[in-house]
């Protein structure tokens, strides 16, 4: 399917654990690696809360999302974009995030979306 290469973006907008959206999005991202398609992830709005460290989701009978997030790098999914405004509205400092991310202001977010072939939202 090499002739069909398209750029994909997954937009994450939800907090983890309260709904299945965060995990659903990550499961799709990890599936993409099998297809060797160009993939970017964008964390906007409450999805930046997924990036806080030290989750202990076993206290609520769930699995840590952090483990899945850490797998992104192993699967060579390294285009991770984070909305700067969403971080600052929640008082999260970029140095609290252990993943290798790129901060984007709102203009850069519009530009990122503009250049994609397909976008999936969660």
């Amino acid at each position, binding site marked *: 399917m090499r002739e069909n290469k398209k750029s994909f973006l997954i937009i994450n*907008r939800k907090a983890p654990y309260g709904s299945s959206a965060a995990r659903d999005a990550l499961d799709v991202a990890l599936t993409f690696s099998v297809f060797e398609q160009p993939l970017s992830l964008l964390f906007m709005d409450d999805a930046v809360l997924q990036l806080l460290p030290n989750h202990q989701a076993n206290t609520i009978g769930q699995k840590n999302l952090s483990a899945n997030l850490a797998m992104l790098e192993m699967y060579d999914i390294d285009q991770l974009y984070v909305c700067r405004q969403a971080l600052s509205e929640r008082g999260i400092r970029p140095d609290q995030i252990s993943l290798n991310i790129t901060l984007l202001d709102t203009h850069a977010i519009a530009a990122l979306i503009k250049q994609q072939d*397909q*976008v999936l*939202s969660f």
Partner: protein
Amino acid sequence: MTTLHVINKTPSESSALRDSLIAMSDGDALLLIENGVYATLPAYSEHFSRLTANVQCYLLTDDAQARGLNDLNQDFCGIDYDGFVELSCRYSKVVSWF
């Protein structure tokens, strides 16, 4: 590449509308469906004040009529599902906000 942004939530039930407006580029279009059509109430017009004249605004009339929104906001062009499909073709991709 241009984008059709589809929003299906009210301004109060989700930040979908707010986030979509951040993500919009000149030449894109915006389509309100389901509960999203309530954003055409004149009281919400300030949400759209940032938009340039180069972003077309549409609403799905099926959803507006269902909800008793008959005095349509003049800034939004009413379309049916066929129009929704045509817009999906005219713009290079569709991004959903919910």
